[in-house]
């Protein structure tokens, strides 16, 4: 058990390290001729106006919010699905009630227009 997580740790370190090493190598090999012209932010040749930190629609936040709630509820259904053989019919119905409450949230978000992107 623990040894497999050690392997996963090695694997993750290598998978993150490989692109890092490649980028660093390329950075050494590549030519470096910086100039102020080059480092201008690319906005189709037009000079940047104002801050980059434009305001965003609250819609993004609403989507993120619904996602967060759904994500948590679904993740906690996983142990339930794994233990399925040990559950009685009643327990399965309990799980479906859980999903039903989740669906209620979806319907509310839908009715309140959280998914409209006007």
């Amino acid at each position, binding site marked *: 058990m623990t040894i497999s997580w050690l392997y996963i740790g090695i694997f993750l370190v290598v998978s993150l390290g490989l692109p890092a090493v490649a980028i660093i190598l390329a950075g050494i090999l590549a030519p470096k001729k910086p100039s102020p012209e080059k480092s201008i932010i690319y906005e189709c040749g037009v000079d940047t106006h104002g801050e980059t930190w434009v305001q965003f629609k*609250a819609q993004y*936040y609403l989507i993120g*919010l619904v996602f*967060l*709630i759904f994500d*948590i509820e679904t993740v*906690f259904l996983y142990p339930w699905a794994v233990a399925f053989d040990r559950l009685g019919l009643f327990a399965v119905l309990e799980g479906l009630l859980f999903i039903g409450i989740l669906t209620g949230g979806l319907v509310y978000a839908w009715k309140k227009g959280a998914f409209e992107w006007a």
Partner: protein
Amino acid sequence: MIPLSWYLVLSAALVCIGVFGVISRRNAIAMLLGVELILNAVNINLLAFWRYMDVIHVTGQVFTIMVITAAAAEVAVGLAIFIAVYRNKRTIAAEDVADLKG
């Protein structure tokens, strides 16, 4: 083998850092991040006690689930409130938003 105390001291330190963040930051979102640190310290404690004291039952794990749920609900509602306040008052500095005082 790691003694239990290591986890406990680590999570005590995390709680204290979180408390510092909650008390001292001006930005309300930053205060929320402090609360997140505290809740995570709680999770470390719960799982450590589960692992070291009572590995047969899953009580510690169920509590962790509850803490994660509560943390998520808190973040969702908290950030929504900050965004609403920001929309009306153009600030989220905690001391400027004292209208709810009785």
